[in-house]
């Protein structure tokens, strides 16, 4: 599911890490699966995001519908 990252409701240090790893505000990401973690593709990079983190990342589906959880 393609989506755009709106915000991350996390401590500043965690947000800085997410930005460094590629999850920056406005980036397009694609949720590839939910196993033990959320698997997300960003800029040809595959990331596994723990559920506790994913729940605090707000994204908008590219069809315009807002979602609070990828």
């Amino acid at each position: 599911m393609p989506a755009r990252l709106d915000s991350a409701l996390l401590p500043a240090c965690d947000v800085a890490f997410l930005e460094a790893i590629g999850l920056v505000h406005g980036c397009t990401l694609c949720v590839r699966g939910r196993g033990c973690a959320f698997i997300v593709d960003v800029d040809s990079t595959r990331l596994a995001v723990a559920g506790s983190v994913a729940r605090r990342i707000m994204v908008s589906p590219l069809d315009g519908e807002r979602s609070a959880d990828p």
Partner: protein
Amino acid sequence: MSTAVAGCPADAQRASDSVHPVTPHAPHAPQVRYALLGHPNTGRSTLFNRLCGLRTRTANYPGTTTGIRVGRCKTGGNGVLLADLPGTYSLDLDLPESRICRTYLEQGKAGRDVPNAVLVVADATCLARSLVFVREALSRGRPGVVALNKMDLARRRGLTIDAPRLSRAIGCPVVPVSGRSGEGTDLLVEALAAPATTDLPAAGRTEMTAWARRTADACVRERSPAAGSRDVLTDRIDAVLTHPVGGVLVFCTVMTGLFMTIFSLATVPMDLIELLFGYTGQWVRAVMAPGAVRDLVSDGLIAGVAGTLVFLPQICLLFFLISLLEDSGYLARAAFLADRALRPFGLPGHAFVPLLSAHACAIPAMMSARLIPDNRDRLATILVAPFMSCSARLPVYVLLIGFLFPARPFLAAMAFAGCYALGAGAAVLTALLVRRTVVRGRPGAMVLELPPFQVPSMRTALMVTADRGLAFVRNAGTVIVAICVVLWWMSAYPSTDPPAQATAWRAEARAVVDVDPQRAVDLEARAGIAESRHALANSFLGRLGHAVQPVFEPLGYDWTLSIGILSSFAAREVFVSTMIVITGATEDPDNAGLLERIRTATRADGTPVFTMSTAAGLLVFYVLAMQCLPTLAVTRREAGGWRWAALQLVYMTALAYVAALGVRVGLQSIGIA
């Protein structure tokens, strides 16, 4: 696809005017000292190995390089020094790896070898993300070179990168390379002689990200339709490997298969090594004059070292197979699987890498725990890491499992896997205890990059295997030899008169030699063993063993086993060589089978030293006990005080003692003595 160096000659000139002057071709000029920077998993360490020929630890998942490895690039002229720094996603993060990189860039190693240039490794398969870091690293004022790594993988994905255009956009040389295949590394070596300083100013992350995307869009020209089908395949594999149930089943299957493979394939070389050292010992006894020196060489040195080296094939196989798993991309998935499993016990998924490394040795594992962001997470990981079964325990496991399940490889493999499971189980339960008592708190959140699946590199696996195998041999050749010599001396002195019974048997043998030669031979042999046993019992080692034996009496250990445990507090693997030295003094020394000699060792009353319950209890003891002085020293250093090392020692030893006692009593209660 461009493979030539895309350089900027004009910028090379600017380098000499920079804050950190670089004049590599001038006579007696200072060396070019490069800091090797890049994201985790961009292949920095593989490229470093390729350029310098050094054996650094590399893996296909983040967090492997924890220290700084410095090597000289294999090139002419004045040469180039490269420092392989930990992979980091940014130099400005408040994370250990970022701090290490920042400190090294500013101060070098304790003020020496401050780098005057940077070699930034970019991942050609995800250029846009790498370019953000490239700009961040180069805009700090040092001249640099960009190595566009993983070009072989990019090509397979149908990506074509315009390196000259990219070089113009960045403002310094860009060299397409493949650290795995060696492609382009000769050109990279040439480019290292002429780094350039970029004109790009430092900027905020949003601006850098936008610039990186524009640049990547302009330089990456093509994307093959095959990439889509590859993504689908990767999705399907990831769906299985990270599934809460399926992923765990795959993990258990992979690990059991790994241990069964080790047990099956290592048997032949182990037998050959044992045979070789057995014959060598016999040859020494045949050619050297009887005396203390002959006994030292044959029973002390040769037997002691053989008892350790016999396990080299298994250790090499373990590292070889783990390296293949790492390189394939599987272990990163396993790490995230582990996050879900470890989190309820108070450990973060980041602890997976240190805990896995602890299967090789707890010392580098504790050092790799430096990369765990949260200090409490890190401390908890350090405290429990020694529970994981390290390679030093392997010889003891193999010895004792061989006693418990002779000629039954499946059961032996299960027991072997059980030892690893017991160690891991003790680690996580201890972590739970630790996080609720001395290191309170919950672990931090985890985000991890999943590298693409790839065919593992045999070269990398063989390098890792050779590196670890040689380290084990070096240890056997130094510490263990020294301990063997000391143990032999303690077991041989002070000299004592033979016991009366042995003297009587020898007299009887002389009396009957003409009438019954076979009986005379038997009597002589019996007298010899009685003399050896008496001498050992009255030696320094024997006295020490008898003194501590009451402590281990509840576990069923006699004084020889007590000595084995005491001596292996220095290093666990010493247990086997200690037992060989001790039994060499009491059993038939001409027996070529060293392990058989231990297995059939008897007490003074003729009962076996190793019963089922004793061997099983001893196995559990070695799984859980903290018997490694160097590990305790590293705990003190990494955790920040002796109190943590003391806590670790007392807790693990007490747990091991109680567990071993429980196993022995339990087995005896169901009739297994």
